[in-house]
């Protein structure tokens, strides 16, 4: 593989990705086309993951590289690529502060160009519902690891119903969850792995034609 930005991303070679990005910016490459090139690399990593050639750690590493390299790329807000238009909100629910899985998932979403708002940990149902309403959120990702988080997820979803927001938002729960927890909480989907959450989110976005291509 040639020593291109694309290959540096695919090889998860962070130093080279940053060096090449800086060089290209220095020589006047358009930031949007540069970002496209990086996204193509990230996309290739996703394809290799789907084929079983890459693993979640590789996806996490690609997320870290993407996060790092985008610090160097500035472009006007109106030029942000269209794939950012789906509105996704993340929160670890009330009474739970575990966020390793949530943070990794957010990095992956960002590496895919999805625009994410993170409310952090121990977030009350009220705050989540307010934010869903305020931002017209389309996908809500609720995270929880301990058993008391199930009640918080359930309360959050009930509150969305009460506020008549439930039909407007798809709810994905993640962490220590399964089908039983999905039924208990009233969520739409449950995921164990960050990649599964990403896949669902992309499918939802594509159904709503919220993305050109991811």
């Amino acid at each position, binding site marked *: 593989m040639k020593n291109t930005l694309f290959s540096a991303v695919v090889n*998860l070679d*962070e*130093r080279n990705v940053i060096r090449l990005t800086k060089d290209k910016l220095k020589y006047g490459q358009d930031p949007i086309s540069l970002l496209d090139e990086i996204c193509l690399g990230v996309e290739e990593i996703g394809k290799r993951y789907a084929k079983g050639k*890459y*693993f*979640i*750690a*590789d996806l*996490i*590493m690609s*997320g*870290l590289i993407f996060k790092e390299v985008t610090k160097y790329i500035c472009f006007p807000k109106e030029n942000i690529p269209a794939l950012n238009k789906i509105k996704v909100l993340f929160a670890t629910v009330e*009474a*739970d*502060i*575990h*966020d*390793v899985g949530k*943070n*990794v998932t957010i*990095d992956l979403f960002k590496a895919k160009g999805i625009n994410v708002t993170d409310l952090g*940990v121990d977030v009350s149902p009220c705050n989540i519902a307010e934010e869903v309403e305020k931002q017209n959120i389309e996908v809500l990702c609720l995270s929880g690891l*301990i*058993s*008391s988080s*199930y*009640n918080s997820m359930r309360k959050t979803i009930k509150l969305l119903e009460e506020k008549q927001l439930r039909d407007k938002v798809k709810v994905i729960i993640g962490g*220590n*969850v*399964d089908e*039983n*927890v999905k*039924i*208990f909480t009233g969520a739409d989907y449950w995921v*164990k*792995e960050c990649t599964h959450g990403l896949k669902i989110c992309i499918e939802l976005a594509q159904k709503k034609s919220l993305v050109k291509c991811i």
Partner: protein
Amino acid sequence: MSINSLSPEERLNAAIQFEKVDRIPCAPLIDNYAARFANITHSEFFFNSKNAFNALASIKERYPVWDIRRSSYSAFYGKYQKIIGHLKNKLPGIELPDNNECQYSESEVMKRENLSIIKKSGYEEFINEYYHRIHGSLKIEIKNALSEQIEILKNEIKEANRCGQTPLYGYLIATAEEIICYTRSFPEFIRDIYQVPGLMHEILSIVTDSLIEITLQAVKQTGVNRVLIGFSRMNGQFFSPYYFEKFCWINLKRIILSFIDQGITPVIHIDGDWTLNLPYFRQLPEKKMIIELDGNTDIFKAKKILKNHTCLLGNVPSTLFTVGTPEQVKEYCRKLLTKLSRGGGFILGSGCALPYMARHENVEAFFESIS
């Protein structure tokens, strides 16, 4: 063989060695639920070992079939969580309401350059610095907490025996990569092993040596030759076989073989999906260890992979205890008992910890499945 003709210790050893048992040993990891069962607060449980042991004894009294005391109480005892707890935490009765569950958060506390402390001054110096950064612990406090931890464990072992149980763990450790991962955070740990593999290989090996030494000393003090080795992250769910072999298996294998060589039974607690990595355990001596599985690894596949080789413990999922029904719990336990007990090498248990919010009727259904 008639039921209850074996003592709990004999039954446990028979299961490990795939010999006939009078009934399947029963080993839920029940600490988190015990306070609620005994109607005391979580903080009363975690900060007062007498309360905790009474609570656990009351479960044993209610459910006499519980014969294997599988407890991590000594590792999570409240008083020293702010001194030697592996992660920054919020505890019931301190930052959280009395009845909340303990919570843990992870961040990049130690930087990559700090890993050189391990090379220069050893693991103890590094971990002391880490505890100091997350808890403000002083060296003398750390030393005292570690001694107290052994005392709590010794008391719990005595208490288990008094209740007619046999203790599963004579000491509990996390693996080198798990500990370094806590100190660096999971994403940064991945970055480390991808970008500075030589350094990581070297420091993980040093930490592994220290953990073996610490464990051998501890087991001499507690007198129970079984050690929990807990870890969750370095598996096929996250890492390729290349990284697993180079950074996890090489050290895990060394720890396990060292313990077996010293007559210690390793009890390997693996969270997450380990299906891809289970065949590696066949490289180790057969019938010398236990593997504890949570609900994420398919225990029925595990049985096929490790048939006649390694005793399995598990794996009623925590979600089933919390939001399932007694019928679902009984059905799952029945499936476990029917499919896994054939040929020996099985212990019924919860997959990881039986949760605080478990429904009482589901816990009852779990124990009744053995009865």
